[in-house]
């Protein structure tokens, strides 16, 4: 091995030198507007100047901010691009270099982004535990000054502020969130004289009636597993209360606790065994399973509000939602309301621009746009909710009346625990009788995962 060390180092140095002379050529090759950034590095670049003249006649010097986003679904993606456009209009001397990465891949790439010497300046991310991990590793920039300057300490609800703070400093900007609920086909409910159920008994009755009439009561597509985690979140919160649920997520309670077992054996298993879910859910992604709801083959779907993005507009009139039924009235009500937002990388290259951009993203104008056009809920209390649709108002009320708001299973616990946990849910789905063994395994994983922390 030693033999290799010297040539290796020598070659690295040479290559580094070669590399140092390269970057300009690389950017020039790319025929996209955004190459304006070249100007910073190469002051006399005629061709680019022509382009600039067309777009922004007066501006000579532009600074930039690099923004990587995981909003890859069609509707959010358009809204995201529009926000960038709005920002560039407001700050003509800042150019946003915007990249969109497929959602799943973004989650994998983020560790490379954050540890790169030239990371993206601003990135999208999940609020809560997942952001906390990077904050603890000093990879996210303290933006308390932005919070102070923008007056967010007053205009953001305390809950969102707490979600973004570690040790009294703010690191994150929660920007939009959505609610989870049981979506249902109002026309099918009417047809069989059903009312949205409020209690567990009512819910079971609704399922039974639908099933008798040949309609699959509940649609679900568990190919990518996380949809089953929603059922666990809700059942566990309704049966054992949100406090217990969150402690379980944080590794403070154990999976082999009899209270957890009850959730599966007394509530979840009967739903599966009675055939209240569609057949073969593991074969479908959540959106493939949505077709059962659209076609009227199924009547209910526990899902986040992004469901409406995919629902055909012309048929949305038949779609409504209700709060996940209450199982034990003595237990405080918890809801899932995942929150997405933005942060600045700790070693961002364009700090001032990034702060301006993030101030814009967390500000009233951007949030208003997101709320109005995408139907998500804003975090900033100054956003005008007057123009909200009935759905939005209802969703807002749903979450506001909750005693506790959780993020979501795979956001509230660690990625590894979530991976093993969701596999456990899927296994339980196929073999409800094995739940005791499955929970014993989850417990073993929990001990391992949280012992390391």
């Amino acid at each position, binding site marked *: *091995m030693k033999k*290799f060390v010297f*040539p*290796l180092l020598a*070659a*690295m140095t040479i*290559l580094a030198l070669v590399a140092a002379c390269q970057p300009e050529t690389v950017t020039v090759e790319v025929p996209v507007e955004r190459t304006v950034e070249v100007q910073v590095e190469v002051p006399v670049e005629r061709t680019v100047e022509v382009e600039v003249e067309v777009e922004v006649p007066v501006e000579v010097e532009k600074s930039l901010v690099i923004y990587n986003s995981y909003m890859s679904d069609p509707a959010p993606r358009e809204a995201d691009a529009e926000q960038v456009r709005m920002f560039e209009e407001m700050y003509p001397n800042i150019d946003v270099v915007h990249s969109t990465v497929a959602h799943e891949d973004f*989650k*994998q790439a983020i*560790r*490379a982004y*954050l*540890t790169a010497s030239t990371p993206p300046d601003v990135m999208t991310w999940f609020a809560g535990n997942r952001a906390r991990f*990077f904050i603890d*590793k000093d*990879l996210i920039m303290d933006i308390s000054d932005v919070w102070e300057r923008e007056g967010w300490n007053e205009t953001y609800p305390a809950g969102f502020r707490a979600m973004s703070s570690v040790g009294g400093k703010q690191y994150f900007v929660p920007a939009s969130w959505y609610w989870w609920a049981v979506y249902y086909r109002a026309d099918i409910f009417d047809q069989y004289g059903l009312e949205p159920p409020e209690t567990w008994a009512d819910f079971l009755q609704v399922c039974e009636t639908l099933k008798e009439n040949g309609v699959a009561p509940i649609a679900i597509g*568990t*190919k*990518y*597993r996380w949809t089953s985690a929603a059922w666990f979140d809700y059942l566990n919160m309704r049966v054992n209360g949100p406090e217990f649920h969150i402690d379980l997520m944080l590794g403070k309670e154990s999976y082999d606790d009899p209270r957890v077992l009850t959730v599966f054996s007394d509530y979840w298993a009967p739903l599966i065994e009675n055939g209240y879910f569609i057949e*073969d*859910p*593991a*074969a*479908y992604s959540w959106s*493939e399973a949505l*077709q059962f709801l659209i076609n009227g083959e199924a009547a209910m779907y526990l899902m986040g509000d992004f469901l409406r993005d995919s629902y055909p507009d012309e048929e949305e009139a038949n779609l409504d939602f209700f709060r996940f039924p209450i199982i034990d009235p003595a237990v405080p009500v918890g809801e899932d309301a995942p929150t997405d937002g933005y942060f600045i990388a700790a070693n961002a290259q364009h700090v001032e621009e990034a702060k301006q951009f993030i101030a814009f993203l967390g500000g009233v104008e951007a949030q208003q746009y997101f709320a109005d056009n995408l139907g998500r809920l804003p975090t900033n209390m100054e956003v005008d909710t007057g123009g909200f649709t009935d759905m939005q108002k209802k969703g807002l009320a749903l979450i506001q009346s909750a005693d506790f708001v959780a993020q979501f299973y795979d956001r509230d616990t660690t*990625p*590894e625990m979530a*991976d093993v946990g969701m*596999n*456990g849910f*899927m*296994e339980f789905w*196929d073999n409800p009788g094995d739940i005791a063994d499955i929970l014993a395994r989850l417990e073993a994983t929990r001990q*391992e995962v949280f012992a*390391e922390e």
Partner: protein
Amino acid sequence: MTREKRLSQLTPYLFLILPLIIYLIWVIGPMFYTFYLSLTNWDGVSTPDFIGLRNYQRLFKDPVFYISLKNNLKWILSFITIPVVAGLALAMALNRSIPGAKAFKASFYSPLVLSLVVCGLIWGWMYQPANGLINATLRAVGLGALARGWLSDKNLVMWAIIAVGIWRQVGYVMVLYLAGLQGVDPGLIDASKVDGCSGWLTFRHVIFPLLTPVTVIVVVISIIDSLRAFDLVSVMTRGGPYNSSSVLANFMYIQAFNNYKMGYGAAISVVLFLISLVFIFIYLWRVLQTEMEY
């Protein structure tokens, strides 16, 4: 003379220096780094802590490791049998002047043009239980009872994915055998026919032995491809439902990039690498044996 000799001894190194440096830096270096990482608890962002063989201890206790290993074995067994037999049969059938031979050949190796990701997407859609082609066909011909959730049944899913691999592999094996048949002297075949050998006997005792070198390569390539299986599983099921279609490469990927257990992921790769190494040794040993004229 001695100076000249020394120079000529240097020549191969001159040819090698540039490619080798690049290879050492970008492949071998990171490879050794991976070995080192497998002894740490690296999460991708923090400083790695040395934890000795803990990752390996954990791995050998992890049930998913054994599921994955078993799936890789299923993959190997399927790959060294079905495509080899089918590819050889096709090569025998098409290695003569039959009408449209070229079109037949092209049809069988066309799946190779598609990337594995595209194959996975296309087949994922074929297997779709409600509207996919396979179940739709079964229902249309009155065999609806056979319709399955091909990718959601834990007992079927691995075979369903392997079938896609086979679909792609058969053409490859066929082409390899076709090339091998080019090297078979037609005179030998004629001679055995004159001796009164039936078609099967000729194949069994004359042609097949002559194709042994091809068969060896086909088997080795198939084994290595099976061990590296990743894309199809990743696109079609991500190892689900609950790990029942997990293979080692996917298991590693999920641990490293989904669960951010880079150290653990590295340990899985090292084990996978060592398994592959066994087959490389066998292969190299054979190749080098036939090259004794050095």
